């Protein structure tokens, strides 16, 4: 079963705009990660935030984590057409080692 739910399911924006995706999960986590997938191929790791962290940055990416609400958000600033992809949040749980539980993903479309 899926652990998390991403919101929105689909997002269409113009180049240069910011894109925000949200993720909710159900049980306590060790960390939360965001992955990108282009055209149904392999996933690429974007960023990892640990359960004791609240915010993390990597280039144009900003991730926040609210463990009290069991939610996270991914912000992509100044979007480019190359950012068009599906984005998934994935959670790792202490009881489950390093196995990842993925949400259903947000499909981002950036038009030029």
């Amino acid at each position: 079963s899926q652990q998390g739910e991403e919101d929105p399911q689909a997002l269409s924006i113009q180049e240069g705009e910011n894109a925000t995706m949200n993720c909710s999960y159900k049980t306590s986590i060790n960390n939360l990660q965001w992955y990108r997938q282009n055209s149904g191929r392999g996933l690429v790791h974007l960023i990892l935030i640990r359960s004791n962290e609240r915010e993390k940055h990597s280039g144009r990416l900003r991730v926040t984590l609210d463990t009290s609400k069991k939610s996270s958000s991914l912000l992509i600033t100044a979007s480019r057409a190359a950012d068009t992809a599906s984005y998934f949040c994935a959670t790792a749980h202490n009881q489950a080692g390093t196995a990842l539980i993925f949400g259903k993903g947000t499909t981002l479309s950036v038009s030029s």
Partner: protein
Amino acid sequence: DAGVTQSPTHLIKTRGQQVTLRCSPKSGHDTVSWYQQALGQGPQFIFQYYEEEERQRGNFPDRFSGHQFPNYSSELNVNALLLGDSALYLCASSLEGVRRSYEQYFGPGTRLTVT
């Protein structure tokens, strides 16, 4: 530095048949996880292999089995194929032990179609 490789890229099988998918982890990694991704869904965890043993397993029937070899490469076997087994099968590698890394590196996947 070679990343995660998977073979074959595409595969078409008939219901009831058996299939074997293969994965070579990223250089230096010792753990292999397998995921099934149905169309329009997120990946679902099948199982994970470390030190040649199945360490964790998701909610998949015994028709799904695997193996890890001494060189850390891995195979996923699916017996008695069902139409519902049609999916993209993803292999991911990571590092365990004292240098455990939660970040996983994914291969390009094997697209399995069951007819």
